[in-house]
């Protein structure tokens, strides 16, 4: 099943590993895991058919866009959420309660604001009945190791974001878990701090006085996944399924500018946006069947504002065709930061992405170069044609006599495919696009959408 792939520079560095036999018994295993949530519009499948293994000695990244259920999967692994069907095993034992071998680092830190750094770190020990001198000794050792020395009596609100996440690390480490689970641990931090902490995480990982045998990190940031992980699992959306599993055999520390690194990032981008797998094969279930209708459910709007996507278009207009990483470098951002805008440009036919190269199309250049009234018109036309949700809304409004409908009508439609939060995001994005294109107007007091010409 392993398919070695040759990079442009010649060496083999990508291997598909689905169903590849492993030599050691896995620490954690999910078996036919399926998770659904009951929503007003019916049942929403978040995860489906997830079989994965976490092995000793590896850093595993779960990569996916928002809504791919990656955080839900992590919580199932932690034993904080019950799978609807299927189950999770830790060292061969089926979980019936919170996973005893894991500890989690949260995106939003989850520190108790009313307790000091040391108290926050000690709480996990106290829950295990370790108190007094032993607890404080162990806490102080970890606090020292993580670089929080001198902050023991500080309250979280006195700390910067980076220092807070260090407390999160320390709390997770102090109970000596075998598997460290991390839920987007760096995404609430600014770019520099995040980079710094990633380095420290790798440093901790390389120490041998720490009993951690494996790390599972959830991220939407492709570069972060390639930078940290030995193996990346890409989750697709609606429902979340494993799309791709990629082994990363680059030596650490990894160089973001190396050819291999960029090749991996761009390959993963394509997989994430659902076109081709990394090894260049077209995957049937991923490529939208053009004979089938594009629906708001099958083609969700990328959550990008008009400001964001037109900003990106203007940048692209100035640069010749370039790679996404070039754009990222230019902006001092990471690819993940403007991914939704890039996807939006693609959906609207303003840009094409090919093998990681992004370039504006003719209409994209017109859109970027036109004055505001003109670009609104171009935008409106493309959005109607190509953005399924926008098209559906316009058509629905036109088919009513008075040209207006309550927003709940569309919400109900969206709920069939999306969760509560995503439904709101889809609708907000559509309204943002529709307003800009002067296609329709949203009246907040009436909770009504109505055609612009009648507004």
């Amino acid at each position, binding site marked *: 099943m392993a398919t070695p792939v040759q990079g442009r520079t010649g060496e083999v560095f990508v291997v598909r590993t689905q169903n590849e036999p492993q030599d050691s018994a896995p620490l954690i295993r999910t078996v036919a895991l399926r998770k659904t949530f009951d929503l007003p519009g019916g049942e929403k499948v978040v995860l489906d058919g997830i079989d994965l293994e976490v092995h000793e000695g590896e850093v595993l990244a779960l990569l996916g866009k928002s809504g791919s259920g990656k955080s839900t999967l992590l919580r199932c692994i932690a034993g904080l959420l019950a799978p609807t069907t299927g189950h999770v095993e830790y060292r061969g034992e089926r979980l019936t309660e*919170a996973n005893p071998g894991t500890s989690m680092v949260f995106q939003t830190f989850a520190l108790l604001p009313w307790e000091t750094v040391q108290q926050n770190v000690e709480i996990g020990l106290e829950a295990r009945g370790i108190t007094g001198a032993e607890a404080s000794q162990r806490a102080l050792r970890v606090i020292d190791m993580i670089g929080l020395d001198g902050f023991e009596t500080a309250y979280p609100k006195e700390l910067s974001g980076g220092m807070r996440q260090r407390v999160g690390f320390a709390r997770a480490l102090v109970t000596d878990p075998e598997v460290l689970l991390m839920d987007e641990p760096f995404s609430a931090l600014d770019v520099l701090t995040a980079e710094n902490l990633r380095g420290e995480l790798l440093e901790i990982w390389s120490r041998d006085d720490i009993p951690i045998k494996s790390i599972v990190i959830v991220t939407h940031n492709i570069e972060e996944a390639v930078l940290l992980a030995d193996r990346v699992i890409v989750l697709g959306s609606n429902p979340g399924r494993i799309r791709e599993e990629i082994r990363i055999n680059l030596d650490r520390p990894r160089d973001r500018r190396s050819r291999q690194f960029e090749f991996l990032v761009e390959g993963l981008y394509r997989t994430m946006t659902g076109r081709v797998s990394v090894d260049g094969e077209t995957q049937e279930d991923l490529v939208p069947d053009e004979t089938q209708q594009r629906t708001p459910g099958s083609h969700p709007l990328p959550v990008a504002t008009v400001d964001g996507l037109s900003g990106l278009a203007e940048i692209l207009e100035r640069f010749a065709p370039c790679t996404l990483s070039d754009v990222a470098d230019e902006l001092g951002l990471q690819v993940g930061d403007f991914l939704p805008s890039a996807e939006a440009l693609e959906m609207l036919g303003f840009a094409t992405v090919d093998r990681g190269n992004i370039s504006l199309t003719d209409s994209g250049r017109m859109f970027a170069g036109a004055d505001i009234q003109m670009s609104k018109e171009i935008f409106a036309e493309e959005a109607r044609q190509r953005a399924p949700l926008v098209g559906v809304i316009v058509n629905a409004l036109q088919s009513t006599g008075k040209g207006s409908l309550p927003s709940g009508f569309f919400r109900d439609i969206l709920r069939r495919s999306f969760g509560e939060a995503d439904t709101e995001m889809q609708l907000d994005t559509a309204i943002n696009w529709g307003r800009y294109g002067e296609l329709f107007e949203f009246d907040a007091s009436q909770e009504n959408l109505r055609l612009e010409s009648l507004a």
Partner: protein
Amino acid sequence: MDRRIVESRITLPGKLLGKARRVSLSDVVVALAVMVMLYGIVRVGRGTAVSFAPETNRSIDTAVRNLPYYAARSLLRMFIALAASLVFSFVYAYAAARSRRAGKVLIPALDILQSVPILGFLSITVTGFIALFPGSLLGLEMASIFAIFTSQAWNMTFSFYHSLVTVPAELDELSKMLRLTRWQRFWRIDVPNGAIGLIWNGMMSMGGGWFFLVASEAITVSNKQYSLPGIGSFAGAAIADGDLVKVGWAILAMVVLVVGVNVLFWRPLVAWSELFRNEQSESASVTRSFVLDLLRRSHWPRALAALRCRMAVPLDAAMGRVFGTDDVVLETDEADRRLGDVVFWFVIGGLTAYGTWKLYSFVAHDEGPAVFWRPFWLGAVTFVRVIVLIVFATLIWVPIGAKIGLNPKAARIAQPLVQVLASFPANFLFPFATFIFIRTGLSLDIGGIVLMSLGAQWYILFNAIAGAMEIPSDLREAMEDLDVRGWQLWRRLIIPGVFPSYVTGGITASGGAWNASIVAETVTYGGVTLTATGLGAYIAAASETGDMRHVLAGVVVMSFYVVSINRFIWQPLFKVAQERYSL
């Protein structure tokens, strides 16, 4: 009923109020169940009423030198009631938040309970408690504490319940991941998370509690006068004697109590509770308290912390074993669960149906449903009073409050002042007003509105100030920059800005006014009794003669009015406020 909810952001259980729930079957069931409970207390009281003895009714010595002692007794009552309210809110809110089934009954029940006019209920509970503790003052004492308790507990419970169900998801996961015991979780996550709301609500509720303290210390039930040594009964005796000087002394003592409790107890607590603000950065304006600063500078906190640590370890371990771990149940049996639901609702439904029938047959007796007609029409009269009161208070206090709130300096001075005014038991001022009514010959039908407003209006003022303070200064600067002024400024910015906060105050004021009607529609001063037409007077008269049937009928009808007004007027307004005007 008496919602002392002032700081809308913290205290209002937005989710509960905001959702204009449709009146569902469970609401009706629960409402009936609450009424059944009241009925149970009456029955206990009535069955043992024979053994009533007029003993223990010591008279109140109105010598001014006794006042400090009486004030202390009253204060003790207040704090016992506060402690009871706190324990009650812990238990009740926890059960409601943690048990799916209990929550479905307990939360609607709380909604009804807070709409029951406590004062109408007073004569019922006094009878019950005296029966429980025959031959001692303890029964009266308990009845008084219970009255204060019922004025505080519902609010605090709502607040704590709200904070329990809105514990940030990551803290919930944290607790489960760390496998905290339920006991540890309660004290290290749940209580700190709800502390600010509890303290705010405790402070506001205690402010409201003084009113009920005064009303419950001296009371006439079944033509018998009972009084407890306390500041309220002192004032009551002075009023009966028509001695305005002594009433003045009592008022002075009351002011000292209210202000003292605020400065020495609540402000330090509020300042301390800043620690529990779940904000990731330090907030700009922090409540300061010199008492707290003083305490912090002393060695007591450290000594206490050390003691607490030493006690906490064994207690944690023991309670951890008792209450178990805050675990995740990964596998549940659907069939078991459904069966449990069926049994649960069957039992609840059966008990409620039986109780409702018993309650109805007691109240209706031989009159049939006609027993409710008179209170119903009288209720309409009182309703008109409440409306007039709210309209006038709004027209007068919203502009003034907004003006104060827009001026930070004035607001800093005015806010604590108004808070004290709102805490001050308005029934202390009744004799002065009554004195004027008797002199001028003003009918209590009109004067009653003034009496009711003495307590209720401050909530509107307080919230108007708070609302105006929350209008962001950049919005005001923008308006100034655009030269928007005068009526246009009020229409476009100030009124919408104050509105959410105003609604909160309005709910409180209207609930308070209904309650006050029971003591405001019948007043006595120096042997002269004035009576107004209204549901309050109806309940007061029935309880004076011990006519529990009609007290209950009146209370049921008044609860019905309060619940309906909240559902059909205030909740829709609240929803609009939250959706359109929240800043």
